[in-house]
Structure formats: structure tokens, C-alpha cells
């Protein structure tokens, strides 16, 4: 892949199949290069995070960069040891909402972000929903309280357990 050839110091790994992706230890440097150089002329199309609990570098961030003039899409990965990273808002204005979403969903702080507020979850929401230790059903549910005449939240109460079935048969493998 071109990036690995041009910037060997920054690229730590390359995957080619079924889709090309580059992992890096210096994401902001690579993003600046992708944005600034005439060769790439890239624009941020998407940014998201993935949680891998149990790994020392738990959160993986992924940037999707379109180089429109060349019609090339670059997937850039980086894994974070601590959930902190400088913001890319000043390179890509479209990063404002992407970083807000990653922050609220996974708890990654983007340093220098002008407006890091919750985006999709409820006002006053606690927790990071896309972390793997967050249950699908959540922690709180809301209902209308007849006595207080307002909407109140309380702990979730499921009449049926969330069921997962294990279909692996013992004599396979």
C-alpha cells in the first residue's frame, strides 16, 4: 500500500484483503498528510471506534478518508492505550459530530475539541453504550409516574431474561 511505502515510520501494519486498511501509531500525523498533500487531497468521511476489552490497547479508532480526485478510500486504524487523543476538528470540520459520537459511545476524549457534548443519548445519560461491558438493555428505563405526574426513570425490569442460545454441537470441530 502506498501509505506504507511513503511513510514507513508512521505505519505499523497493513491489511490488504478483503479490503485495504492501514494501522498507525501516529494517526494525527497521517491525517495531516492525507489532508494537506496534493497527492491525497483527502476529506474525512467517517470516524468510529471499536471496543476490545481485555487488550492493553482497548479502544480502536477508525478513520475513513476519501481522496476524491483519485477516487481512493483509505481506512486508517489506531489503537489507544489511554482513551485520549488530540482532536482532528481543525483538519476536518466534519469531525465535530463524529468525535462527539465516539466520545459519548466509547468515552474517548478528544483534546482540543470545541464542543464535546453528548449527541445521541438522553439528557443526563450515564455510561458508554458501545463498550462491550454495557448491557444491550441498558441500566435505566423511563415511565410516566401517575403519582408524581411526570416521567421518572428507574432501574430496568425485564419480565423475561435476555436469552442467547448456544447452537454449537459438542461433536463438531
Amino acid at each position: 500500500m502506498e501509505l506504507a511505502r511513503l511513510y514507513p515510520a508512521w505505519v505499523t501494519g497493513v491489511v490488504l484483503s478483503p479490503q485495504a486498511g492501514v494501522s498507525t501509531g501516529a494517526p494525527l500525523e497521517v491525517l495531516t498528510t492525507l489532508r494537506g498533500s496534493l497527492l491525497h487531497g483527502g476529506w474525512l468521511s467517517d470516524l468510529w471506534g471499536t471496543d476490545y476489552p481485555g487488550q492493553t490497547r482497548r479502544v480502536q479508532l477508525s478513520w475513513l478518508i476519501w481522496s476524491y480526485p483519485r477516487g481512493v478510500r483509505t481506512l486508517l486504524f489506531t489503537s489507544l492505550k489511554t482513551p485520549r487523543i488530540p482532536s482532528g476538528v481543525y483538519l476536518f470540520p466534519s469531525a465535530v459530530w463524529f468525535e462527539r459520537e465516539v466520545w459519548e459511545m466509547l468515552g474517548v476524549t478528544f483534546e482540543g475539541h470545541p464542543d464535546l457534548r453528548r449527541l445521541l443519548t438522553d439528557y443526563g445519560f450515564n455510561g458508554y453504550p458501545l463498550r462491550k461491558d454495557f448491557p444491550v438493555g441498558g441500566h435505566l428505563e423511563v415511565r410516566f409516574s401517575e403519582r408524581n405526574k411526570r416521567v421518572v426513570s428507574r432501574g430496568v425490569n425485564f419480565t423475561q431474561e435476555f436469552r442467547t442460545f448456544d447452537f454449537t454441537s459438542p461433536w463438531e470441530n
Partner: protein
Amino acid sequence: MGKLKSFTINFGPQHPAAHGVLRLILELDGEVVVRADPHVGLLHRGTEKLLEERNLLQGLPYFDRLDYVSIIAYEHVYSLGVENLLDLNPTGSARWTRVLFLELTRLLNHLMAITTHALDVGALTPFLWGFEEREKLIEFYERASGARIHAAYIRPGGVATPVDVTTRTDIAAFLAQFPARLNEMEEMLTNNRIWRQRLVDVGVVSLEQALSWGFSGPMLRGSSWGWDLRVATPYETYSDVEFGVPVGLHGDCFDRYLVRVEEIRQSCLIAGTALDKLNLLSAGEASTPDREGELQPSLQMEDLIAHFKKFTTGEVIPPRLFVYTAAEAPKGEFGVYFAGDGAKPWRAHLRAPGFVHLSALDGIAVDHIIADVVTLIGTQDIVFGEIDR
């Protein structure tokens, strides 16, 4: 008495021009917008989290509920993603059926976009006419899949059922009369004095801005960048179809309206081509199987067992695999990212075009008067199912 400098109003979340559940905090100086802060998430259902709890076949219906005015386009991207992940190849007729319904979906979406936009701005009649046509299109959905809205028609490996001859004939009859209906709608709008006063030179987005905000679809094409994923990264059988990509010149709301109208016309042509190809293909195949796709059962016992296993465990994704798949949905680039592990995706991420467009609303709306905010929301073609996910 102190001088009142600026005040803040709540636009939505129940305002009909907010296209669903947009809560917009508008800071105003007189009638001029100083800051527009969209509060989204009132329709957030955690689709990404839910997808991580389900196997690859169970995930499909969630995509119908993302953008509920262009349904099949979104389940198509999901199916493409699963096919890329598992290396499946649908048959030629399944691909042409997909193209046919993708373009009908584009008609559905753009009819909704243009006519509700006109409704917000004050023109009621195109809305009534457009929804008459939408109703006909929704009936084709129903005849193909059994469901009017949440079709679950395009599936990994193919489509649920092929379209029969009578439906194909009726779609052809619809496409023959539709351009006249579109002309009627254009007569109402394109040269209408009020429509032009409300749209021309409102919400101008320069090309540099459009690119830096990550726009795609008609929002990007309206700003004079002829970018269409159907051409840039051809999928299905789009490379075998001749069609044009309309481009606006000024980047204002009126140009985006014109782009959408022309896209409707081009979609009619593509759908016509797809119909012809389907008619040829079905004439060639004397005995078409009644259900298509690789994930359909046969009546052999061994096949039934294999089929049962597939539908209970789901297809197993090879470990450490990731795929980002994107296609040109009517609103722009819709993408699905899967990172694989076992039967369920470890991470499923959705790139919704409306989310990106709405994030730039603040930048576009500043220095417009408050009445223009309605125009801007209309031109962005916002649907909250996909933005909030």
C-alpha cells in the same frame, strides 16, 4: 430597559417542518440566525449495539427502519456488506432486480424530499400529487415483498422473491406515465415565483465547504462536484447502464432541487433498462427457480439441515476480518462497517449521510433569517431514522 440583543428559541421536536424529531436550538438576533444547535437522538434505538447481538441474517430488518423513506436502498447496503464479508455472488437476474428496486426507491425518496420540502415552504399541491405516485410505488414494494414499507426484500445472496411478469408489466406502465406526472410537478414549482424566491441563493454551500463537511449525494452534487458512487465505485450492474449524473452550479437550495428532479428522470431510465434486462433474462431461462438467492432451502434432507444450521447459528465470519461497504443511497453515501468475529459482528458501524449533512446545519444556517431554516432542513432531506440510528 436594557436592549434585547439575542434570544433563543426551540424549533421542534414536534414541529412538522422539522421532518420528524429534530430539536433545534436557534439563537436569534432579531430574525437572523446566529447559531443553530441541532439536538438529535430522540429516535436513537442503538441499532449498532443491536446488530452486535444478532447474527448476520437477523440484522437485515433493522436497516428498513433506518431511513424509512428509502427502505430498500439501506437493506441493499447491508446485503452488499454481508456478501463482501462472506464472498457471496448473487445471480445476474437478482442483480438486475436489485437495480430496478433501488431506482424505484430513489423515486420514492426524491418524491418525498421534493414534495415535503415544497410543503414546508408553503406549496401544498405537489405534496398531494407526489404522494399519489409514492402510493403506486409502495404498491410495487408490496407486490414484490409482501410489505408496503419495511420490505426486507434484498437479502444477502440475492432477493427474497423474483418479480413476476405482471408486476414487471405494471412497473413498465408506471414508468411510461410517470415523466408526465413529474412535468406537472415541475410546472408547479420550477418557475414558480414564490418557490424561486424562497430557494434561489438560499443556503449556498461552496464546493470547499461541501467537501470539508463530508457531504455526499445530492448535497455534494448541488455544489458542482459530480460524485456518484454508482459511477465512482460501480456495484451490482450499474456499470452496464447508461445514465447521467446531474450537477448543480451554484450550490444553493434551488440547484439541489433541480439535481433531485433530474435524478428522478435518470432513475426512470435506469429502471427501464433494468426491466428490459429482466424481461430478456426471464425469457432466456425457461424454468426459473421460484425463489432466488444462495440462502434458500431445497427439499433435500441434507440441504435442509445445512439451511437450518445457517439460519440458527448464522454465517460464521472469519476472525479479524473487516469490511466497509458503501453505496449511493438516495440521500448520499450510506456505508456499513463490519468487524468480524464468529457468528455475530463484533462491531457494526453505520455511516448515515443525513447525520453528516445535519452536522453542517449550523454552518449553513448562520446569517440566514429564521424562515430560511425551514428551507435548509428541507433541502438537506433529513430523516431521523438514519441520523439517530
